[in-house]
C-alpha cells in the first residue's frame, strides 16, 4: 500500500513536491539545531526523533521506502528508546546541562560553518544541475535480492558486529 502512495507522489506536479520537501527540510534543520542547543537532555532526544522522522521522509522522496521504514523502525524505535533509558539511568543533570565555555562554542561554530561552506561550495560546484527522478520506488524484493547476492559478506559481518556489540554492552555495563 505504501508503494502505491509513493507512486502517487511522483506523478503530481514538481513544484508541489518541492515545496513539501522544503517544509520537511526546514523542520529537520530546526530540529537538529534544537538538538544541539537545548539545555534539557530529554528535549534533545525528542528533537532528535523529529529529525529522524524527517530523514525517513527524505528516503521516501528518494524512493527507498524500505530504508525509510527501517529508519523509522530501528532508529526512532530502538535508538531513541535506548537514549531515554540512558538518560533515565544516569539521572544526570536533567535540566541544567549547559555547554562548554563560550569561546569554545564560538570556535566550534566557526569550524562547523567553515566545513559547511566548503561542502556546499563543492556540491554546488559539481552537481548544480543534476536532476534526480525517483522513478519508482525500489521494491523490497530488489533490495533483498542485492543484499543476499552481492552484499552477502557485509551482511554477515554486520550480524557478527551486532552480536559483538550486544555482548560488549553487557560486559561493559555489568554491575559487579
Amino acid at each position: 500500500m505504501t508503494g502505491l502512495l509513493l507512486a502517487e507522489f511522483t506523478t503530481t506536479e514538481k513544484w508541489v513536491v518541492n515545496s513539501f520537501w522544503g517544509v520537511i527540510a526546514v523542520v529537520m534543520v530546526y530540529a537538529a539545531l534544537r538538538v544541539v542547543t537545548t539545555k534539557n537532555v530529554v528535549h534533545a532526544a525528542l528533537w532528535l526523533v523529529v529529525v529522524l522522522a524527517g530523514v525517513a521522509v527524505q528516503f521516501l522522496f528518494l524512493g527507498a521506502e524500505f530504508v525509510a521504514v527501517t529508519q523509522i523502525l530501528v532508529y526512532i524505535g530502538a535508538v531513541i528508546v535506548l537514549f531515554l533509558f540512558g538518560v533515565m539511568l544516569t539521572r544526570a543533570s536533567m535540566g541544567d546541562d549547559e555547554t562548554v565555555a563560550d569561546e569554545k562554542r564560538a570556535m566550534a561554530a566557526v569550524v562547523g560553518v567553515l566545513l559547511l561552506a566548503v561542502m556546499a561550495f563543492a556540491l554546488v560546484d559539481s552537481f548544480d544541475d543534476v536532476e534526480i527522478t525517483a522513478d519508482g520506488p525500489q521494491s523490497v524484493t530488489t533490495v533483498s535480492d542485492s543484499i543476499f547476492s552481492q552484499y552477502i559478506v557485509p551482511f554477515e559481518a554486520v550480524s557478527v558486529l551486532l552480536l559483538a556489540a550486544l555482548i560488549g554492552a553487557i560486559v561493559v555495563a555489568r554491575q559487579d
Partner: protein
Amino acid sequence: MFATLAAEAVSTVTTVTNDAAWFLENAWIIPLLPAISFALILFFGKRMPYKGAEIGITAVSVSFILAILTGVAWLDHRDHFELEKYGEEQAIAVSDGAASATDTVAYTARFVAAEAGEGGAHPYVAVQSSTQWLQSGGIEFNAGIMVDGLSVMMLFVVTFISLLVHVYSTDYVGGDRRYTHFFAFLSLFTASMLFFVLSDNILQMIVGWELVGVCSFALIGHWWEEKPNSDAALKAFLTNRVGDVGLLVGMITLFFAAGGGKTFDTIKINEAVVQGGVSHTALVVAAACLTAAVMSKSGQFILHTWLPDAMAGPTPVSALIHAATMVVAGIYMVARLYPVFWEGMQIEGSSINLLATVGAITVVGAGLLAFVQDDIKKVLAYSTVSQLGYMAMALGVGAWTAAVFHLFTHAFFKANLFLGSGSVAHAVHSFDMKKDMGGMRKFMPKTYVTFVIGSLALAGVFPLAGFWSKDEILVNTGGWDLLGGSGAAPGSYTFHFVMGMIGAALTAAYMTRCVYLTFHGEYRGGHAAHDDHGHDHEEDAAHGHHGEPHESGPRILYPLYILSAFSILIGFVNLPPGFLAGSKKDPAGWQERFLHFVEPAGSSYFPAVGHATPSWSLAIVASLVAVAGAGFAYYYYFIRLDRLSKQLGESLVAIPNGITTTNVFARAGHTLLVNKYYFDHLYTGIIAGFTKGPLARAANWINQNVIDGTVNKAGESAVQAGQLVYHKIDQAVVDGAVNLSGRVSDASGEELRAINSGKVQNYAALMFAGAAVLAGAFVILLAL
C-alpha cells in the same frame, strides 16, 4: 814502530781470512748481537749470576772484535781492491783512480800520484748489501748495510767505547736497584747506534736516529724517581723530536728530488747530487732542514739546552751517549750526505754558510758557558757542545776529514774525561766541584793523571790527539792563508777561523779551571755525607766510606788507562804530510792514513773536496794560543786563588770567588766591605774576570732564560693553547652547537605538549578543523 806493527796485523789477518769481503758483506751481525743481548737481558737478565751485565759485555766485546776485523778487511779492501772479486754491479762507485787533479788542488793530486806509486790508485768503493724490506705503492723500500771508511771508523769507536763503558758501569752502577734494566738499555743503545751507522739508506737512518733518541730518553731518565731526572729525559727527547721534524722533511725532500726520484738509497742520492741532477732549491731546503736536525741531535747552539740537562743520567751514559756516540750522530749524518750539504750550502768558494756559522757560534758560546758551571759534568757537557761546534764548523767549511778525524779523537778523550769525572764523583758522591771536591790529587792520583791527559788532549797540546785534529780544522777553514799562511782550503772562512782560535783558548782555560777546582787546593768535601743532588743509590750509601775519598776500583781505572793511552796515541793516525819527513824508508808511509782510509775521495758519491796544505806556522800559533789560555787560567787559579785561600785560611769555597760573584752587585758590596785587602784582588778580578765573568753569565742568562725560556714557554703556550682551544672552541662552540640542537628540540616538544590536553572534544575539533581546511584547500586547488 806502531806503523809496522799495524802493517803486520793487516797482512796476517787478511791471509787468515783470505776472503776479507765476508766481513764487509756481513757487517750487519755487529748491530744484531747487542740487539739480541738486549732481548736476553730483558727476559733473563734478573736470573743471570751477574744480573745481565755479562750478556751485555760479551755481546759488545764480540761486536768489537768483529768491528776490528771488518776494519782490517776494509783496510785490505781499500788497498788491494780487485775489480773482478767484487764484480761490476757491486762496484758501484768505481772511479778511474786518477782524481780530478785540478792543478789548484795541488795537494790532492800530489797525494794521489804518490798513491799511484803503489801499483795503481785504488778506487774508493763502499760495500753495500741490501734486501727488500717492503714494497708499497710501487716504491721499493730496502734495508741494508753500507760499509766504507766512515762507517768502519764509527763501528770501531762505538763498539770500543761501549765496551769500556760496559766494564766501567759494572762498578759505577754497582748497587743500583735497576742494574739489569740499565744494561738492557745500554745494549739496545749500542745496537741502535750501530744500526744507524751501518744504514745504507736514509729511511734506515731515520729509524736508527729515533731509536737512539729513545734509548737516550730511557737512560737519562734512569733514576726517574726524582722529577728533575725525568724532566731532563723528557726535555732531551722532545728537543730531539723537534729536530726530527727537520729530519723528516729533509729526508722526504731528498727522497723525491734526488736520485731520479723515489729512492732512499744514500749512494744513489749522493751520486745524483754530485752529477748535478738535482734542483738547487730542493737541495737548499733539504740542507737547511737536515741542519736543523743536526742542531737538535748534536746539541748545536739553538737546540743545545738539553745536553747539559742530560747530565742527570748516570755518568757512563753521559760518557757513552752524550760525549762519544749519539751526539755525533748528527755530524755522521752530515758526513754521510756530504754532497747534499756541499751543493746545498755552496761550501766551496763561499765564506759563510749556515752550518759553519752555527758551529762557530756554538764553539765560543759553549766555551764561555763552561766557565760558569760548578758541576763537573756540566763543564764537560758544555765542552762537548763546544767540540761538536768545532766538528759542525769543520764540515761547514769543507774540511770533511778534519771533522771526522776530530770526531774520532774527541770520542776518546771526552769519554776519558767523563769517566774520570765519574770516578771522582763516585768517590765523593757528588758532582759539585766547588763544594765537594778539590785536592783530589792526593786521594785519587791515578784518576788525576788520566784526567789531566784527557784535558791536555782536549785543549790541543802538542803531542796529544786534540792537537792534530783541531789543527787540521783550523787549517782547513782557509782563514789562515789570508793571514799569511799557505795552502788552499775549499773556502775562505776567516770569521770561523777566528772563532776557532778563541774556542781553542777558551777550551784550554776552562779545562785548567776544572782541573784546579777538582784536583788542586785542599779537599773541601769533608762532609761527604751530605750529597744534596748527587745520585744517592741506596746500596751505594750503605758501603759509603765517609772519611777520605779513595781511588776507584780497577774496573773504573782500566778503562781510564786505555782511553788515556788512546788520547795520546790516536793523534798519530792522521799525521799531516811532511811531518815525519825524517824516515826515508817510508816517506809517505804513515802520513794521512786516516784520510786515505776514511775519506771517500774520488768516489762517485763524494764531491771533490779540497785539502788545505797544513802549515807549520798555524800549528805553532794555535798551540801558543791554547797554552796562553791555559797559562792565564793556571796563573789565576793555581797562584792567585791558591795563595789567597791559604792566606785567608778558609777553603776556596768559603772565600767569595772573584770570578763568579763580584758582578752580583749586592754581594759585591758586602765582600768589598768585609776585607779591604780584597780590593786589589778585585782589579785582577775585573781585568781577568771581565772576559770570563759577565760575558759567560750573560751567555748563561741568555741561554737559560731566552732560549730555554722560549722552549719552556713554547711548551706552556702549547698547553695554554690547548686549554683555550679545548675549553673555548671545543666545549663551547662545537659541542655547544650540538647540545643547543638537543635543547631546541626539547623546548619545542614542551610547547606542543599542551595541545594534548586529554579532552576528547579538543581532538575532535582539531580533527574536523583540519579536515575542513584540507577539503577547502583541495577544492580550491581543483577549482583553479
